[in-house]
């Protein structure tokens, strides 16, 4: 199969370039990550992140034929040749397919992605009704692979100011949590022309999410809560 890989080794002093690679591999039942690891076995200078190889850890997110996906759950047979593999867009490239995730994590941290509850701890655990628990479905499953946020033009343009779809989905996950007490502060944190309202609802995030989540819907719910609070 034919591949076109983005290569960049900053210490070589060369500009980034695309490398054509021919690999003898039977696509049946194999994922893109299998092919990339086979290429790396031939040429160990190829750098990429990967860990769980089953779509759970989110470390092998990359841009494949123009779409952000996880290499480990992208079937080779689905891809049109030559398969063009690039690092995630919108983040600084460290080397080959490895990007600096710091701008993404900084926005994630800014929404305080942990439960805030200053009540004394109960004897056993903080219980939720099944209905309250159901509100977290579609929000808690995010694996922070950054496929959605790096597919978002608003994030490309304002990575320092716009929280991005992944961060906003997580923000909603804690706003919706019946055990969290900081809802008002969380809404204050997000009510901003840049942090929240740079989302124009184009749904690139929904298209990119390898877990089938819907950040646009969560962002809509945050906006609804802000409107409710205001009017």
């Amino acid at each position, binding site marked *: 199969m034919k591949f076109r890989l983005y290569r960049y080794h900053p210490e070589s002093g060369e500009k980034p370039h695309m490398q054509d690679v021919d690999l003898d591999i039977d696509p049946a039942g194999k994922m893109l990550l299998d092919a990339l690891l086979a290429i790396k076995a031939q040429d160990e200078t190829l750098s990429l992140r990967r860990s769980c190889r089953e779509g759970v850890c989110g470390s092998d997110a990359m841009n494949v034929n123009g779409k952000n996906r996880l290499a480990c759950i992208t079937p080779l047979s689905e891809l049109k040749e030559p398969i063009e593999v690039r690092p995630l867009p919108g983040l600084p490239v460290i080397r080959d397919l490895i990007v600096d995730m710091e701008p993404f994590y900084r926005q994630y941290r*800014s929404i305080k992605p942990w439960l805030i509850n200053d009540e004394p701890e109960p004897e056993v655990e903080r219980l939720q009704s099944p209905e309250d628990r159901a509100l977290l479905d579609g929000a808690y499953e995010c694996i922070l692979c950054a496929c959605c946020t790096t597919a978002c033009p608003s994030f490309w343009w304002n990575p320092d100011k716009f929280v991005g779809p992944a961060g906003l989905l997580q923000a909603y996950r804690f706003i919706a949590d019946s055990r969290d007490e900081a809802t008002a502060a969380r809404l204050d944190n997000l009510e*901003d022309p*840049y942090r929240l309202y740079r989302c124009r609802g184009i749904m690139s995030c929904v298209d990119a999410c390898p877990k089938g989540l819907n950040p646009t819907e969560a962002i809509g719910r945050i906006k609804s809560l802000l409107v409710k609070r205001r009017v």
Partner: protein
Amino acid sequence: MKSSTGAHTGTGTWLVQRATAVALAVALPGLTIHFLTALPVDFAGWQTLFVPLWVRVLLLLTMTALALHAWVGMRDIFMDYIQPVGLRLALYLAVIVTLAGCEIVMLMALWK
């Protein structure tokens, strides 16, 4: 790390943009039909199309919605592309003057 927080603004402008979008989606086709169904028309006939009060009020409200919608849109564009604060404020002012000017010209044309 500096703690991030919101400017506590943005909901109002977002709401204005959404509300005016709905208003425009309803009003523009209505007005278009009102004028198109009267065609072909001479100048006197064209003038009579503006005689009913509801047409003039609807036109003015539509223009207002359009102006507000355009204001939020232009403001968003300037926020993204114009970084120097002075220049950005000058452009804001230019847009406001232009849109308000359009509104006044329309008011004068409809109720002269």
